[in-house]
């Protein structure tokens, strides 16, 4: 019986450490996000105001496409790194076309964000 009680205690260890939190409420400050109406209103989707914040919050992590990432993975902290992946079709293939397997490990992009990215690529992915 003592052994059983020890086992119950061991199992209970796996419960300690549970918490209920979410990113929205945990951080007070809001990150720069693109305006959903930009594409709907026909406004130009610019790299600086729309694409960069979108990429920054969804792709530029040190383990993924952060500064110094190897070229086969792509360093999206700089324009040239992202442009290279636009030019070889990787962004279209993995982010815009189905099945969208990027961004991996993060929530998927919303439809308006996909539309913005697509509009920017259709314009030739300018550094504007």
């Amino acid at each position, binding site marked *: 019986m003592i052994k059983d009680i020890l086992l*119950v205690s061991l*199992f*209970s260890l*796996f*419960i300690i450490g549970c918490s209920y939190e979410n990113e*929205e409420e945990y951080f007070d400050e809001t990150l720069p996000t693109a305006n959903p109406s930009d594409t709907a209103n026909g406004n130009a989707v610019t790299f600086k105001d729309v694409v960069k914040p979108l990429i920054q919050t969804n792709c530029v*992590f040190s383990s993924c496409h952060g500064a110094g990432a190897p070229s086969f993975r792509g360093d999206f902290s700089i324009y040239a790194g992202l442009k290279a992946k636009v030019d070889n079709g990787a962004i279209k293939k993995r982010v815009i076309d189905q*099945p969208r397997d990027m961004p991996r*490990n993060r*929530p998927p992009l919303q439809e308006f964000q996909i539309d913005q990215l697509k509009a920017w690529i259709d314009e030739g992915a300018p550094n504007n």
Partner: protein
Amino acid sequence: MKFFSGFLLFILSLSLISQEDWAGPAFRDTRIVNGHSVETNQKGQLKFIISHRFGSINGGLEEFYGLDQSNVRLGLDYGIIDRLTVGVGRSSDQKTVDGFIKWKLLEQNTDNTMPINLSLFSSAAIRTLNIDVAQREYPFSSKLFYTYQVLIARKFSDRLSIQLMPTLVHRNFVQTTSVNNDVFAIGGASRFQLTKTISWQVEYYYTLPDQLADIYNNALSMGFDIETKSHVFQLHVSNSQGMIEKFFIGETRGSWDDLNIFFGFNISRDFQLGGRKYK
């Protein structure tokens, strides 16, 4: 917490009446495909498990039907006593380290005084991949995930076993308020013995409705187990690339509809470090 402890004590009292005439293992290995079976290691048995999941089959010839990509989990399971197994593993997916404890409380008897096998399973996983937004400081707890399962299996005959797995996956930290920290799922699995050494296994985890975004699917996996003296080879296809509960319950993006599924295998090698010799 009180409920959990109460439940454990209730099961404990049941376990006292089921000690003899074991009906034999319901499953040949401690894994079915991705998830755990009701079985535990023998005392002193160390199991080294190498698991692979390749890329999507619908990648076509260009991606060599997924074989160009690979997700790996390396795991070590050890039987402390005959009915208690602990294990650790490391998945390349999100560079996740996991640990688990599995405790077999009830064993099915040949005379059916105890008609089922029942195990409790609990695991914790830590994501070590840094996918945090650069401008923010996240708490350590945001990287932790927990799973609790009750594994209930019945061996109907030497050929057929069926298992049910009510499951709770807890994510400490989710992205938005509209996403649940807790995900409830019910798994079902079966083993059908085809020959003396080969069996066919199917595993399905049904996530209860209104808990996940539309892009996530239920995980359906199936494949063969090939058993040799001290190895078990498991070859299978699944719409989940993840090999621990946190991934295949709640983060399965693959779909059988468009063949966005993944070929994979588990190979386990047993070592006897203590206790009795192999049966």
